[in-house]
């Protein structure tokens, strides 16, 4: 089943495009900080210097090299997304499996929690927490992950419910496999493609959210992030710096989110045969 999916994915144009661009962005985020010549916090250059050989994208209002700033910002933003995606996925898989295996009171309570959380606009809670406690980005990532698991958990539960009645799972239970054993050995690996979809969708949403929150000034101002850069650059929109300061940040953000969107769409399409017939 998994091999099949990989083959279908490889033939999908959106997936190839998304994977190449995402890979490129992740590569820059991982390796870039070692390649750029300056520390993004170093404030010793002439503010608002035009782009030159020393500073390919110029210098910002605080005398920091914009290229270094951009690369570090990209790393922070993508890191935030990956962290939220990973955490939300772990919670979602745990809750979804528990709700499917102990289908009954436990399952019903867990799913009611999911429905209630889905109704709450998570950005509002994040704004409240960020404004009151001024926590680090990691704490906000935790909060966001804690608010965004329900959609994936519902999908995991639905599939696990179907799997629970599959012959091989019933056989494993019949032969005395404990709940933990059957879940870990049979259910968890079987749903692998679902995790990819969940992770990509959540990470994309988190990058989006981080940019908005940073734009609103809810993160530590010293922490470089794409939304924060746009926020700062927009304050000097009347100067001629918009194409070397504002535009690169906007471009990085849009391209990352767009590429993740391509991945999410093609994964969903490949995994849900009902959707596959809709396209093309």
């Amino acid at each position, binding site marked *: 089943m998994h091999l099949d999916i990989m083959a279908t994915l490889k033939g999908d144009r959106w997936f190839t495009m998304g994977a190449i661009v995402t890979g490129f962005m992740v590569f820059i985020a991982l390796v870039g900080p070692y390649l750029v010549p300056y520390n993004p916090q170093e404030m010793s250059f002439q503010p608002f210097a035009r782009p030159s050989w020393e500073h390919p994208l110029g210098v910002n209002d605080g005398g920091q090299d914009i290229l270094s700033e951009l690369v570090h910002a990209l790393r922070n933003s993508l890191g935030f997304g990956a962290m939220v995606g990973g955490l939300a996925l772990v919670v979602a898989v745990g809750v979804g499996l528990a709700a499917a295996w102990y289908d009954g009171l436990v399952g019903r309570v867990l799913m009611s929690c999911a429905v209630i959380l889905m*109704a709450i606009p998570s950005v509002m809670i994040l*704004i409240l927490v960020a404004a009151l406690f001024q926590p680090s980005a990691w704490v906000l990532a935790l909060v966001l992950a804690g608010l965004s698991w329900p959609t994936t958990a519902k999908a995991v539960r639905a599939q696990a419910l179907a799997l629970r009645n599959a012959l091989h799972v019933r056989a494993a239970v019949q032969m005395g496999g404990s709940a933990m054993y059957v879940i870990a050995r049979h259910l968890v690996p079987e749903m692998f493609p679902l995790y990819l979809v969940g992770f990509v969708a959540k990470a994309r949403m988190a990058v989006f959210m981080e940019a908005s929150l940073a734009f609103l000034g809810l993160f530590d101002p010293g922490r470089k992030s794409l939304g924060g850069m746009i926020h700062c650059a927009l304050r000097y929109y009347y100067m001629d710096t918009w194409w070397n300061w504002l535009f690169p940040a*906007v471009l990085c953000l849009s391209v990352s989110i767009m590429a993740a969107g391509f991945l999410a769409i093609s994964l969903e399409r490949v995994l849900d045969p009902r959707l596959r017939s809709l396209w093309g």
Partner: protein
Amino acid sequence: MRLGRERKALGNVANFLVALSVLVYLSYALPRLMPGDFVTAMFASSHVTLSAEQESREKAYFQREEGFALYLLRLVRLDWGWSYALFQPVSSLILQALPWTLILAGGAHVVASVCGFVMGVEAAWRRGSRVDKALVGSMTMLEGIQEMAVGVVLLAIFALHLHWFPTGGAQTPHAESSLVHRLVDMAHHLALPMATLVISYLPGNFLLARNSMVMVLGEEFILTARAKGLPEKRVRYAHAARNALLPVLTRFGLRLAFMVTGVVVVETIFSYPGLGTLLFNAIRSRDLPLIQGVVLFSSAAVLAVNMALEFVYTRIDPRTCHAP
């Protein structure tokens, strides 16, 4: 059957009410979890120095232990405290900003939903044609660009370089002119932020409408309608599109929570005097009562819309009450 419909809607409404209580409780409990006391936290890092008498008075005011019931009562009576930075009651600030947000976000929603739905229906009808492929491709690309990017680009091109539209605000201040002029002026200011929101909402609506329309077009009753010799327009809209409407509406409720973020960002970019800008300025000046008020108010509004939608679904599609 009637009973089933009502019970289902009531069950969903109960979920939203629980969500609302959780939010209200969080807004009550979170500020109390803050380390240290509120007055020190607010004034220690500011330029204002309090005299000993002022400090003790402020502390007495902010540390009086207020039960949850009293807090609820205050909320219901619209007594949401005073803004530190603007020295006005929070509720009146919110009510002043609300109409602008409603015009901007509501207008953008209506335009984006209607256009997206019609485009989706037409594209699905011409499925596989060049128009359909071009629309799906471009909309999928557009979906990845968020409000922030669209807003910044529109601002740079149309306001700063071409000078076609103003860069911010909702109307020209201190201008005394006739009603018609004022309306034109407001529309002129509204154009860019509204266009930004429409561009970012449209792709989602289009893709959803197209997909649900494609599903409906495969059904047998469409074949019957055609076989009866009905005019094409009637099959397309009265038979097919009518049934494609429900998924679009259901997803609308779910997406609403995310759209709030977009409105806040767009209002900030164009300094439009709605709730988003109010929130942004409150965050910048660490105006906690105002932040709390706006957050609570907008979450409640999102939940209320979702709740109202529950009743609309069953009206639009009687099948939903038979769903498990």
